[in-house]
């Protein structure tokens, strides 16, 4: 077992040496794989950030319930207490008509004009924050329909259309990213497979001799598998670098945009976990590609 482990380590390091003997060819392969892996990784980061943005918006999906002007503040407060018992409502804030008017007067710039009004045209308003896990457009629509039926209620305002469109688009994009990812993963497998196939052809003599002295298929295949592993790991590392640099370059402008919208949002990168996953995906795909190629092509090489 120890000898076996030592052999594997030796092969692992040995193949690295073998790759460094043809640095240009190896680097080119790694470069192509890196780009192929970086593309879906970048898109993934993009989608995750877009999701984070929509997560922010979900929280902001308050339902404004304007009561009829005939409903006075006491009735409004009683209604608020009744509604608070609903399980789909997290909190309710009552904006009394006078307070609303006062605020409007101060901030709207129509202060002078409003002085002329004899009574308050603004109704009492309940601002309802739904429970978070119910904050889907469909659930909100159902809730606002129920609220609309209450006799005290005049208008329920909920603008979910844009959220629905956004989420639908996001869903489409996410699916496209998955598709692109799968296609590029296939591409990585093919790239490695082709490189390994050429490598096998170049090492025909070595493979023949190894088989002649009693090397098993698994033994002959091993260095090629490790080659694929290194190509994939190198490609993954390069992809991680590409994503990190892209995120770093975009972080500033994105923060500026978010700031202009009054948001604290900042671009999130892959993170350590995502990076490790990218490395693992690269190494795994590299290994898979070389496994397929080596299994197919090594069988054909037999001593003559």
């Amino acid at each position, binding site marked *: 077992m*120890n*000898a*076996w482990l*030592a*052999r594997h380590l030796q092969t692992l390091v040995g193949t690295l040496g073998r790759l460094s003997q043809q640095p240009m060819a190896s680097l080119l392969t790694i470069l192509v794989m890196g780009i192929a892996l970086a593309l879906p990784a970048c898109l993934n980061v993009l989608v995750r950030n877009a999701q984070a943005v929509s997560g922010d918006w979900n929280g902001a999906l308050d339902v404004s319930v304007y009561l009829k002007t005939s409903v006075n503040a006491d009735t409004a407060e009683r209604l608020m207490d009744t509604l608070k018992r609903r399980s789909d409502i997290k909190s309710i804030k009552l904006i009394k008509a006078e307070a609303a008017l006062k605020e409007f007067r101060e901030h709207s710039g129509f202060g002078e004009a409003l002085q002329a009004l004899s009574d308050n045209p603004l109704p009492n308003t309940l601002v309802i924050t739904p429970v978070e896990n119910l904050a889907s457009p469909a659930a909100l629509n159902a809730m606002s329909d129920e609220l609309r039926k209450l006799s005290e209620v005049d208008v329920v305002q909920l603008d979910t259309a844009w959220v629905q469109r956004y989420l639908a688009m996001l869903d489409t994009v996410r699916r496209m990213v998955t598709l692109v990812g799968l296609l590029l993963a296939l591409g990585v497998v093919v790239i490695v497979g082709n490189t390994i196939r050429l490598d096998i052809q170049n090492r025909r*003599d*070595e493979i*023949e*001799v*190894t*088989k*002649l*002295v*009693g*090397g*098993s*298929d698994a*033994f002959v295949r091993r260095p090629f598998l490790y080659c694929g592993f290194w190509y994939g790991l190198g490609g993954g590392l390069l992809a991680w670098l590409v994503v990190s640099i892209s995120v770093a370059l975009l972080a500033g402008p994105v923060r500026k945009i978010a700031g202009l919208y009054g948001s604290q949002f900042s671009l999130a990168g892959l993170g350590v976990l995502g990076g490790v996953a990218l490395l693992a995906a690269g190494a795994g795909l590299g290994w898979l590609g070389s496994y397929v190629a080596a299994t197919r092509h090594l069988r054909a090489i*037999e*001593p*003559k």
Partner: protein
Amino acid sequence: MTATALPMIRFQNVFKRYPNGREALINLSLDVASGEMVFLTGHSGAGKSTLLKLLALIERPTRGSLVVNGQNLATVNRSKIPAYRRQLGMVFQDHKLLADRSIFDNVSLPLVVANTAPRDVAKRVRAALDQVGLLKYEQARPVELSTGEQQRVGLARAVVTKPPLLIADEPTGNLDPDLSLEVMNIFRRFQEVGVTVLIASHNVQLIEHFKARRIHLEGGRLIEEFPVAEQPLFDPARLIDTAHLADREST
């Protein structure tokens, strides 16, 4: 006890026909005893290489049975070929050394494929190189060595696992007479310590110097066998001069 009584190699009514229709071996039956040294002679195309390929499981017989070291080769399927080949040392005319590896790495290959512990590998590689007198070239590349030395490295690689059977296809084909004799003497030394040695060679002059059985093939058939006793006995060391040799033969 039966193991020692069994021959190392037993061909029984072996036929080999290649896909192109060529009959390489026709009804060949042959026993090679354990510890014996046998020369296989014949013109090119006589079936010598085919016979060796059947032994190495590079080719399979079309008909007939072949038992080597107690194993019927018909039962050795593809996945068992590597384990089978590890019991046999092979030497080739073109020595088949790997140019991009050191002499040490070339010789150690059969041990490495058999998962030998690294410290045993070094010990046994040096022992094998010492036996062929090339210990000092351990770190050299094959191209830095002469043809004769390369062939000796090939021999060291064949014996490094201490196989019970050593087969060689024209091992002296590319060597001049002096080097040929030197290489053959190394084979002889392995036979003396109990290894069964089977050498295909068309160099009749050379092999006549050795006290060993000769098997002659012609057109895929076994034509004649010279038993050991019938062969002229010479001390190989005295017979490097071929002119002198020819003189002896005519008398």
